């Protein structure tokens, strides 16, 4: 007589995709299914809208988009800008990472904190601040330059292609920094020592040994910075449009003006999507090429390069670079927030608190937007962390057949620029059966999709470091998968998951490129309000809201660090 146990084993054998029945299974399958729908729906909507209209299958949208010179110029501008941003980011990010991980540069912890501050500063806010710093005539740095040199012309005009590249680069390099820093921390000094023994000086060693070793990471960093700048909307809209420069993202945005051309927006989005897919694939290939580097984790020693007499000058140079992305912009935001007229010195006659009063007590949008932003930030971060945790758990413990495809879906949004995602969501959710447009839930879906890769990779790397033994123990005692995850694994993974939560929250409260297409009067968020104010030139109020956004961001990071008891955004140690 078969016992209950043999029956269930037999059943499992007959259905091999069911690796052991567990009440958790529906939850896991449901989560996986939700993730797949979440990713496929917007992409499907874009492809459909770009190929179909009432007449049926058509290529006319593509022909219309790609025969228009203005649209082609926008694409060309984007390629040029993103290439330069990628290059500059690699130079700044790579050098900084090397200095921090491999040399005896002073004040490393503070420099890391400043790099992180550049990382979390919304690029649209940085771009706005730089209009006040380096507008060719009234910009404070140009005023200073003219006062010092007596020159007539400006030192730097931010409303140019170069200005745009500069601003995007100083907010994109942290991505490269963290990648290179991770690699540098794992490289041993053996080869560098060998070069030293053979008589190479420090510079030659860095050039012939360290650089080639880090090359795959540098190329891959270039791709990441390139993609990051490709998808930015706020900075090009603020700096490019006044000078008549369109990029792909600003062009997609104008397709939504009345009368809307969603079909063109979709057709314009598809090549962007394909380009990002190709680049990500290239990056994977480069990083996957192992034999080149000695990056392996253990073994070998790391010794710090002594900078000697260059130590202080190099430190000052680093500080200068970081002042471009942090100190100067923050200072001008604060100054303009407290001034009646931002372009003249801040003295008592020019001092005012009116901007704060107006922003918080008179302007009806502010409270609504702050409320929406927080609500969305908290809900998205919580739901996102939960789903990312479940998905990472499934893929890490290989609980469902085809789990590795889930990895693909969880990481898919990496190739979807925010504005393209928004085009897809707009088309998908403005018509029945599911009308989310008009509520904050369409923003929730957008943010959840957009932030999934970062939440997922954070959760995944956390689970990787936790051995399944303890979990197995709890399951032997009789707990099911979900209970063991909740009571055993998740508590162990606590700090990693809190970091995931923070990443998502900060990503959400600074999001502009998707929000700008998806908001309605009742679902405004802070970034959209800031952009609205920028279009009208309400400088003081923008500064107040920008400062509030930054303060919240730093408060969340500090709170998380306090809870976790260490740096949340640290690179690998």
């Amino acid at each position, binding site marked *: 007589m078969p016992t209950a146990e043999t029956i269930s084993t037999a059943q499992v054998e007959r259905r091999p995709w069911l690796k052991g029945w567990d009440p958790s299974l529906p939850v896991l399958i449901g989560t996986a299914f939700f993730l797949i729908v979440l990713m496929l729906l917007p992409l499907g909507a874009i492809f459909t809208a770009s190929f179909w209209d009432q007449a049926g299958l058509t290529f006319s949208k593509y022909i219309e988009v790609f025969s228009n010179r*203005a649209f082609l110029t926008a694409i060309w501008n984007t390629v040029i800008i993103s290439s330069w941003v990628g290059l500059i980011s690699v130079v700044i990010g790579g050098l900084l990472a090397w200095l921090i991980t491999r040399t005896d540069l002073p004040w490393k912890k503070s420099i890391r904190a400043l790099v992180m501050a550049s990382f979390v500063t919304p690029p649209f806010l940085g771009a706005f601040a730089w209009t006040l710093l380096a*507008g*060719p*005539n*009234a*910009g404070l740095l140009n005023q200073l330059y003219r006062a010092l040199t007596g020159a007539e012309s400006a030192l730097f005009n931010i*409303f140019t292609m170069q200005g745009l590249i500069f601003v995007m680069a100083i907010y994109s390099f942290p991505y490269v920094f963290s990648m290179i820093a991770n690699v540098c921390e794992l490289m041993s000094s053996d080869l560098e020592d060998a070069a030293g023994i053979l008589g190479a000086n420090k510079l030659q060693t860095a050039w012939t040994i360290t650089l080639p070793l880090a090359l795959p990471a540098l190329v891959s960093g270039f791709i990441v910075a390139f993609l990051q700048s490709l998808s930015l909307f706020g900075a090009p809209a603020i700096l*490019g*449009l*006044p*000078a*008549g*420069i*369109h990029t792909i993202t*600003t062009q997609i945005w*104008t397709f*939504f*003006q*009345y*009368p*809307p051309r969603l079909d063109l927006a979709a057709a314009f989005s598809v090549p962007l999507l394909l380009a990002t897919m190709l680049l990500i694939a290239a990056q994977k290939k480069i990083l996957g090429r192992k034999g080149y580097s000695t990056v392996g984790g253990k073994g070998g020693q790391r010794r710090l390069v002594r900078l000697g007499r260059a130590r202080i000058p190099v430190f000052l140079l680093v500080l200068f670079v970081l002042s471009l992305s942090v100190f100067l912009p923050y200072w001008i935001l604060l100054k303009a927030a407290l001034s*009646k*007229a*931002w*372009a003249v010195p801040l003295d008592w006659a020019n001092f005012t608190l009116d901007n704060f009063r*107006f922003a918080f007590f*008179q*302007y*009806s*949008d502010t409270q*609504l937007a702050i409320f929406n932003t927080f609500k969305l930030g908290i809900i998205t971060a919580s739901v996102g962390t939960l789903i990312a945790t479940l998905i990472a758990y499934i893929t890490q413990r290989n609980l469902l057949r085809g789990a590795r495809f889930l990895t693909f879906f969880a990481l898919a949004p990496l190739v979807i620029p925010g504005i393209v995602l928004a085009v897809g969501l707009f088309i998908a959710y*403005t*018509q029945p059966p599911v*009308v989310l*447009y*008009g509520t904050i839930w369409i923003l929730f879906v957008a943010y959840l999709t957009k932030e999934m890769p970062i939440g997922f990779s954070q959760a995944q790397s956390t689970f990787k470091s936790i051995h399944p033994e303890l979990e197995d123990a709890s399951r032997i005692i009789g707990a099911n998968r979900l209970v063991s995850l909740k009571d055993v694994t998740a508590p162990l993974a606590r700090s990693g998951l809190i970091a995931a939560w923070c990443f998502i929250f900060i990503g959400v409260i600074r999001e502009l490129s998707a929000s700008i297409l998806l908001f*309605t*009067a*009742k679902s*405004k968020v802070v970034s959209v309000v800031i952009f*609205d*104010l920028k*279009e*009208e*030139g*309400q*400088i003081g*109020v923008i500064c107040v809201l920008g400062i509030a956004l930054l303060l919240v961001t730093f408060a969340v990071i500090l709170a998380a660090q306090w809870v976790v008891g260490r740096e949340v955004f640290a690179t690998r140690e």
Partner: protein
Amino acid sequence: MRTGLALLVLAVWAASLSIASAQDAALVQAAKKEGTVMWYTSLALPSSTSIAHSFKLKYPGMDVEVHRTGSQRVLQRVMQEAAAGVKTVDVIHTSDAGHFVLLKEKGMLLKYAPQGTMPFPAGFKDKDGFYFGMRATLSVIADNPKLISDKDAPRTWKDLLNPKWKGKMVSGHPGYSGIIMTHVLALVNLYGWDYFRDLAKNSLHVVQSANDPAGVVASGERPVGVNGAEYFYYKTQKQGNPIKIIYPSEGIPLVVSPVAVAKDAPHPNAAKLFVDYIFSKDSQQLLADKEGLYTGHPQVTYPADKPKLKDLKLLSVEADELEKRNAEIKKRFIEYFGA
């Protein structure tokens, strides 16, 4: 006999007054039940906030949510939401009269004549009674007197074509602002598209809102504004900023900005009460005194330092023409100015 007539007139007047106030009371009550007005407006943020504030003072318990953006964005918002079946907007106000031709044609406006609009001039009233001009804005030239001496200053639209202004001028954008849209059409009617083709050769700094040039000129970022809302220049000047307004003798675009209640307004009574308030003498006088605007209200008086409209040569454009040529204007402007 004479006293009899006078008494009759008095009685009719009193009766009409009591009917009006009875209507008022019913409307106020119904409006208060709805509680909120959603106002999509292109009126400058400080000005629209101030109108909303004074409305709330007059009708305690009522709230006005001000959603301020450029005229073309207001239309985009209204259309996008309507297409998705989202019913949010109660009262629509833009500076592109063409929008209201379009909205009326699509049946998206409620026919409602706000109280007190009878004596307004014809240019402020839709002939079918769907929308009424809340304010009149001039689009003017302005310069920064700290940077530009009086004898150098431009005086006419044609002066702006002089190459000496290259890199020194700022313009709003017709793809955002209804005032600039009207401005462009008025000058195209006056001088043809060649004017803008030549103007673009002076490499302008192109901002979006018709209010933004005021700040750009005041800060000195660009010392000359080639267009922009006169009331906002005026307000910026009153706050102590270096701004001089120039009223070109060739004619000044006059922009009458309509207001209307949306057909699908979720708060129809609150919306009616709010537009009634907008056209009341109090509120129209407030627009003139505090915001530096012109209005259609015949009894409103204006600050002594503002020119009288009848002393200026005004350029007006037909709402129908604005509606028909909207796409063309945006396209041409982008062609010349790049974005």
